[in-house]
C-alpha cells in the first residue's frame, strides 16, 4: 500500500498561507469580456448559461413560494381563511408544479451543474455547448406554457395529474400545462444528455473516475435518471393529452381504459425524479463538508457507488406510491421490499458524512451550516419515507400531511438546503465577490428554525389523519396548522435574506480571490470569476479531489512552471498511497 502519487494540483492545504486576495482587476473573465444583451442571450458559454438559469429558477422559486404562502395562510382557519375551494386547489397545484418542474428539477443541474461540472473535470465547456443553450431556451419555452396555463384559469389537478379527473373532469388548463411539462421534460433530457457526454468525454488528463469530485458523480447519476426516465413522462402526458382532446379512453375505465396504468407510467418517472431532486444536493454536501472540515470524504468509493445505487434501484420502487390504488398486492410487496433496499445507499451517505466530520478542523461558515442542516433534515425526511415504504404503515399515512411533511423534509430540508449550501459555497467563484458572513449565517439558522417549525407539526397532523389537498379541515387540527403557518413565514424570511445580501455583495462585497475557502477542487485553481475558457492551460490532475489533510511535510514547493509539458517538473509528494487506489 505505498504507491507513489504526485500531487500537482495547485491547491492550498492548511499549512500554506492563502493565495493573494487581490486578483488582477483588469483580467478578462466570463462576465466582463462582453456586455451586450445579445452576448448573454446567445452565449454558448456554460457559465453564462448557468447564470441565466440562476435568474430564471430564482424567479420561479419566489412564485412557488408565494403560492405556498397562499396555501399556508388559507390553512390558518378550518374553513379556509382567504381562498375559495377551487382557488385553493389551484394554489397548491401551482405551488407543486412550479416548485418541481420549474424550480427543483432544473435548479442544481441547470445552475451549479452547468457552471461547475466542466470546470471541475477540467474541461473548457460542455460537450455540446449549443445544445446547452438550446436546452435553456426549451426550458424557457416550456415555462411560458406553464405561466400562461397558471395565469389564464390555472390548473387544479395537483402535480400528479391523475386521470380520470385530469382527463375528463377538470375544467382547468390541463392541456397547456401538460404541453409545458412535455417541453420542460425535453429541456431536462437535453441537460442530462449533455452532462453525461461531458463527464465521459471531456475529462482532463488524469481526471480518472476515482478522482472525480463527488459532485460530478452526483450530477452524472442525476443525468442518467433524467435521460432514461423523463421520456416516459413525456409520452405519458402525451397520452393524457390525446385522451383529453379526443375523448378516447386510454385511461378511462368507462371506455375500457385503466386509470392505474397512468399511475404506473407517471411514477415510473416521478419516483426516480425525486432522486433527480435529491442527488445533486447530496453532491454539493460532499464538497462543502470536506472543505469546511478540512478532511477527505470518509469512504469515497462508498459515497460514489451509493450515488449510482440510488439512481439504479430508484427505478424499481415506483409502486410504493400506489399501495392503495388497487395495484396487485404481490406487486405491492415487491415494491415495498425494494423500497427498503433503496434506503440503504442513503443511509450509507448519512453515516459517511457524519464520519467525515470526525477528526477534522471544523469551521461554520454559511455553506457548512446549510450542509449540516441538510444532513439533519434529510435524515428525518428519509426516515419518515420508511414509514411510507412499509406497506402496512402506508395504509394510514398515505395522502395525509405525513406525506407532505416527508417530502418537504427531503426536498426542502434536503435539496433546498443543498442548493443553498452550494450557492453560498460557489457564489464567490461565480461572481468573484464575498457576501456578508454574519447575514449569511443568520439566514441559514433562520431557515432551519422556520423550516422545522413549518413541517414538524405536519407529521403530527398526518398521523392524526389530516388528508392533504384539504382547504377545509376539522377544527381540532387548527393549532398545528397555525404553528406550521408561523414557521412558513419565518422560513420565508430566511429565503428572503440571501436575496438581499447576495445582491449587495455584487456591489459592495470584498473581492473573494480565487480560493476564499482554500478548497482543493479544480474550480478553485482558476481565477474568480473564471476566465472565458475556464483554464489558461489544460489542467492535469494527479490526486483525488479532497486532499485537505495532508501532513505538513507535504508542503507544496514552488513549482517551476512549464506550460508545454504540464505533467512535467512538478513537485513529487510521497503519500500513504493513492488516496483512492484506482484510475
Amino acid at each position: 500500500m505505498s504507491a507513489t502519487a504526485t500531487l500537482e494540483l495547485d491547491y492550498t492545504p492548511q499549512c500554506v498561507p492563502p493565495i493573494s486576495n487581490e486578483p488582477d482587476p483588469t483580467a478578462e473573465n466570463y462576465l466582463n469580456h462582453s456586455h451586450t444583451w445579445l452576448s448573454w442571450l446567445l452565449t454558448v458559454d456554460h457559465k453564462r448559461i448557468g447564470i441565466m438559469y440562476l435568474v430564471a429558477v430564482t424567479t420561479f422559486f419566489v412564485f412557488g413560494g408565494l403560492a405556498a404562502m397562499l396555501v399556508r395562510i388559507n390553512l390558518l382557519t378550518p374553513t379556509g381563511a382567504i381562498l375559495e375551494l377551487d382557488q385553493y386547489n389551484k394554489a397548491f397545484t401551482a405551488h407543486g408544479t412550479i416548485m418541481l418542474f420549474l424550480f427543483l428539477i432544473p435548479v442544481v443541474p441547470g445552475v451549479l451543474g452547468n457552471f461547475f461540472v466542466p470546470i471541475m473535470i477540467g474541461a473548457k465547456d460542455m460537450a455540446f455547448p449549443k445544445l446547452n443553450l438550446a436546452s435553456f431556451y426549451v426550458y424557457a419555452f416550456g415555462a411560458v406554457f406553464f405561466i400562461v396555463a397558471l395565469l389564464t384559469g390555472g390548473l387544479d389537478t395537483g402535480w400528479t395529474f391523475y386521470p380520470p379527473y385530469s382527463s375528463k373532469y377538470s375544467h382547468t388548463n390541463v392541456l397547456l400545462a401538460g404541453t409545458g411539462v412535455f417541453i420542460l421534460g425535453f429541456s431536462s433530457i437535453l441537460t442530462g444528455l449533455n452532462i453525461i457526454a461531458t463527464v465521459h468525454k471531456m475529462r482532463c488528463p488524469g481526471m480518472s473516475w476515482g478522482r472525480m469530485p463527488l459532485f460530478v458523480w452526483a450530477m452524472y447519476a442525476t443525468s442518467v435518471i433524467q435521460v432514461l426516465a423523463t421520456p416516459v413522462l413525456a409520452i405519458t402526458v402525451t397520452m393524457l393529452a390525446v385522451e383529453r382532446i379526443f375523448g378516447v379512453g386510454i385511461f378511462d375505465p368507462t371506455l375500457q381504459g385503466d386509470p392505474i396504468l397512468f399511475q404506473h407510467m407517471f411514477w415510473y418517472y416521478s419516483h426516480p425524479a425525486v432522486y433527480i431532486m435529491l442527488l445533486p444536493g447530496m453532491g454539493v454536501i460532499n464538497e462543502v463538508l470536506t472543505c469546511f472540515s478540512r478532511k477527505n470524504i470518509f469512504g469515497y468509493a462508498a459515497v460514489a457507488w451509493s450515488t449510482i445505487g440510488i439512481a439504479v434501484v430508484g427505478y424499481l420502487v415506483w409502486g410504493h406510491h400506489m399501495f392503495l390504488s388497487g395495484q396487485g398486492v404481490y406487486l405491492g410487496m415487491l415494491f415495498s421490499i425494494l423500497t427498503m433496499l433503496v434506503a440503504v445507499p442513503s443511509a450509507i451517505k448519512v453515516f459517511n458524512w457524519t464520519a467525515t466530520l470526525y477528526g477534522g478542523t471544523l469551521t461554520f461558515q454559511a455553506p457548512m451550516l446549510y450542509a449540516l442542516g441538510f444532513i439533519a433534515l434529510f435524515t428525518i425526511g428519509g426516515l419518515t419515507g420508511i414509514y411510507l415504504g412499509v406497506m402496512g404503515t402506508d395504509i394510514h399515512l398515505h395522502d395525509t400531511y405525513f406525506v407532505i411533511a416527508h417530502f418537504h423534509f427531503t426536498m426542502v430540508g434536503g435539496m433546498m438546503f443543498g442548493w443553498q449550501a452550494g450557492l453560498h459555497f460557489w457564489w464567490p467563484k461565480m461572481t468573484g465577490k464575498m457576501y456578508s458572513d454574519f447575514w449569511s449565517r443568520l439566514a441559514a439558522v433562520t431557515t432551519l428554525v422556520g423550516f422545522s417549525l413549518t413541517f414538524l407539526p405536519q407529521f403530527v397532523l398526518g398521523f392524526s389523519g389530516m388528508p392533504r389537498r384539504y382547504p377545509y379541515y376539522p377544527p381540532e387540527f387548527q393549532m398545528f396548522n397555525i404553528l406550521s403557518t408561523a414557521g412558513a413565514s419565518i422560513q420565508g424570511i430566511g429565503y428572503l435574506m440571501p436575496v438581499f445580501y447576495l445582491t449587495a455583495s455584487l456591489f459592495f462585497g470584498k473581492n473573494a480571490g480565487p480560493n476564499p475557502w482554500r478548497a482543493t477542487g479544480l474550480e478553485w485553481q482558476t481565477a474568480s470569476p473564471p476566465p472565458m475558457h475556464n483554464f489558461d492551460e489544460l489542467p492535469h490532475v494527479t490526486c483525488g479531489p479532497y486532499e485537505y489533510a495532508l501532513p505538513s511535510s507535504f508542503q507544496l514547493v514552488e513549482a517551476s512552471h512549464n506550460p508545454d509539458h504540464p505533467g512535467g517538473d512538478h513537485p513529487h509528494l510521497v503519500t500513504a498511497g493513492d488516496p483512492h487506489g484506482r484510475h
Partner: protein
Amino acid sequence: MAATNSTHDGAAPIVAHHFNNILQQQSSVRFGMWLFLATEVLFFGGVFCAYTVYRRWFPLDFEAASTALNPMIAGINSFLLLTSSFTATLAIRAAYTGNQGRLKAMLAATIVLGVAFLGFKSFEYYQDFEEGLVPSAQVANPDPLHHHARGMDSQFAHNLQHVLEHKKYYKDGAHLEDVNLDRCRLFFVFYYGMTGLHVIHMIVGIGLFIWQYILASRGFFVPKERFVYVEVLALYWHFVELVWIFLLPLLYMTGHHSFSDL
C-alpha cells in the same frame, strides 16, 4: 494539437474550441447520438408498454380492428424504409471516403425514399379517413335496452363492420359480434398515435437529411473528418426504421390477413 484545423472553404474550424482533438470530438458526437437514441427507446417504450397492456387484455378486439388496416401499404413502406436505411449507410461510407458526388446522391436517395414512405402513409391515412375508421368519442347509443349497447350503430362501428365485411373477416370464423367497439377504438387510438409519432420522427429525419444535403453541396463534408455527422444522422434514421420494424407486427400484422385479400 491533433488533426488539421482548417477547412476546405476556410469557414468554421473542424475541431470546436472546447475539444482537444478530432477524435474526442467525433466520439462525443457519436456518443451524444447514442444517448439520445436511448431516450427515444424509453419514449417509444412508454407507448409500447401501454399498447402491450391492452393488447394482452383485449386480443380479439385488437385483432379485429387490425384486420381493418391496409397491410399492403405497410408492406410497401417497409421496403421503402429499408432501402432508405441502405442508402443512408452508403452515404456514411461516401462521406468517409470523401466521395462528394456519391454522398449527395445517397442523401438525395434517402430523402426521396423517405418522402415516398410519407406519401404512401398519407394515402393510407386518407383511406382510413375515407373508410371512416376514425375513433370518435361519441357513444351514439345511450339506451342499451333499445339498441345493441356495444354502440354498433355508431358511425365508427358501421364503418368498421363494413370494412371487415369487405375483407371477409367473417370467413375466418371470427364474429364481429365478439368485438367490443370501445376496444377497437382503443386500438385505433394506438394506431394513429404510434404511427403518428413515427411519422413525426420521419419528418424530422428527412428535414435533417435535406439540411445535410445542402451542407454537402456547400462542401461542408469535404474535410473527411466530418463524416461523423452523416453517421449520427444515419444512426437516427436506423432507429426510426427500428421503430417501424416493431410497428409492423404490432399494428398491421396482428390482424387476420391473407394473400388472397391482396
